[in-house]
């Protein structure tokens, strides 16, 4: 809407300056400084010496042992794998729980649909810490699950199911934290789905399962991928769930990073792991963008 006689480009620059400044200084700036710290030498008591040193990155794979010998250290690889496995599992479980729900919601009349989708969003806007904390009450020793088990005589008073402080507890926490993020994008692509396509598929002799597999899933793929990324990425860097529900024993990438900036006081290593996590996320986002653009092409040809 360009209106003649107005200094357009000056206004654009003026209008975007606060954004550039704030994000540039306080978002990109910190990331750059972190990248810098990741290649410096750690101070045992915290902080860094301003000396170039790649040990932060090297440490992810190789570390000196107590005898100062360089050796392959599988520990962080295990943490990375654990983060991966947990994040992938959480994503798949969220998809399995979320997809039918998203589908069901999308087929409701408008007023019901709006309320249901609002109910899905509420937990997302409430405090993550508090929501995770709720699971301690449910999973913990003598918590809701154990007390209802013993109420029905399935569990002796003194026994425990040992649900807390396990990978299982972390997984539940992760799924619970990010489930709404799976449902919302799937819902919006399901909403755009033309039900006549389902009728056509049915008309052409597809069973319900085949309709789901051959029509619904391919057509809502962008939503499914979008939702999966929204769940996968924060799971990878999760801190609260492993900290509260994992008992600090099962580190994930997120809690590993936090650990380096608290008790362990190894800034360069923590920064290096953070850079590693960041690059993983960038890779995931780039792959997503690729898939999306392909899918857009597909839509155009239809």
């Amino acid at each position, binding site marked *: *809407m360009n209106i003649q006689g107005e200094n*357009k*480009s000056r206004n*654009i620059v003026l*209008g*975007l300056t*606060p*954004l*550039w400044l*704030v*994000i540039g200084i306080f*978002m*990109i700036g*910190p*990331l750059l*400084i*972190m990248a810098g*710290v990741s290649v410096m030498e750690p101070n045992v008591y915290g902080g860094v010496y301003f000396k170039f040193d790649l040990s932060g990155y090297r440490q992810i794979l190789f570390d000196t042992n107590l005898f100062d010998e360089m050796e392959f250290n599988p520990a962080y690889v295990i943490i990375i794998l654990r983060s991966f496995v947990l994040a992938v599992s959480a994503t798949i479980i969220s998809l399995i*729980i979320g997809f*039918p*729900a998203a589908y*069901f919601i999308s087929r409701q009349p408008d007023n019901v649909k709006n309320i*249901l989708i*609002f*109910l899905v*969003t*509420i*937990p997302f*806007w*409430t*405090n*993550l*810490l*508090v929501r995770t*904390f*709720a*699971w*301690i*009450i*449910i999973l*913990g*020793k*003598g918590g809701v699950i154990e007390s209802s088990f013993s109420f029905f005589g399935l569990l002796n008073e003194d026994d425990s199911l040992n649900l807390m402080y396990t990978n299982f507890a972390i997984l539940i926490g992760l799924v*619970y934290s990010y489930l709404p993020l799976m449902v919302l994008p799937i819902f919006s692509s399901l909403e755009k789905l033309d039900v006549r396509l*389902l*009728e056509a598929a049915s008309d052409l002799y597809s069973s*319900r399962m085949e*309709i*789901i597999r051959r029509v619904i899933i391919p057509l809502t793929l962008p939503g499914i991928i979008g939702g999966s990324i929204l769940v996968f990425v924060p799971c990878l*860097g999760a*801190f609260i769930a492993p900290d*509260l529900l994992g008992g600090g024993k099962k580190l994930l990438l997120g809690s590993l*990073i*936090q650990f380096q*900036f608290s008790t362990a006081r190894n*800034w360069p290593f*923590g*920064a290096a792991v953070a850079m590693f*996590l960041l690059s993983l*996320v960038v890779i995931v986002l780039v792959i997503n963008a690729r898939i999306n653009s392909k899918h857009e092409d597909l839509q155009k040809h239809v």
Partner: protein
Amino acid sequence: MFRKNKFRHVWDFPGFSGWTAIFFGFLYVPIFVLVCYSFNSSSYAMIWTGFSFRWYEKLFFNDDILQAAYNSLIIAITAAPMATAIATISALVIVRGGGFRGKEFSSGLITLPLMVPEIVTAVATLIFFATLGINLGLINVIIAHTVFCIPFAYMPIKAALEAMDPNLELAARDLYSDKNSAFRYITLPLLTPGILSGFMLAFVISVDDFIITLMVAGGGSTTLPVYIYSMVKMGVTPEVNAVSSLLLAFSIIFVTGYWFLNKKSS
């Protein structure tokens, strides 16, 4: 004498309704349990001994919690308007600026805080302030909050702007408004619900934020979530449930307000 209706539309899948009920149960039962247990009169969270408001009463005499809540409020009340202001101006330029160089870059920049994992933002901000020696107490936290609230404020404002007929502004110009009065009498009033909902989201996000605040906050800047975290670490007491329930209630009220606002404007 009705025939039992066995017809099922092709778009109805058996079992999905039950599954959805389970889904909502999964979402809400933990919250429900949390709130219920906050009324537990026992001093130990997991053992129910009776109904009581004592933990809520206790909250009101806990100076540290009140101070933390006050901090949270001060931070949100400062960071959210700043984020909203930046988001509003940026949205106006990005949506209404036509095709200009750097448009893609700017809209990417605005969503950056959403893309970067929170823990990375948290430690990066920590290192940033530590390295540059910037120690302004609450202001450090406010700056960090402003940054990551921007995209949340931006989303509804951008949506409102995109939904607005650009001809309205032209109509105003046509009817003898100069640029400023067209903005003042048309764009701004029409954008207000969007700005308000952007502000509310930013506010909620700021009040709820934990990880970044945990890393950035120093003495006297503890916010409610950080305080709750230290309480949880100390042990699961009904007092934690009570303060958590209040925080939940606060967010839910705000988000519901946002929802109604959005519904009204659309």
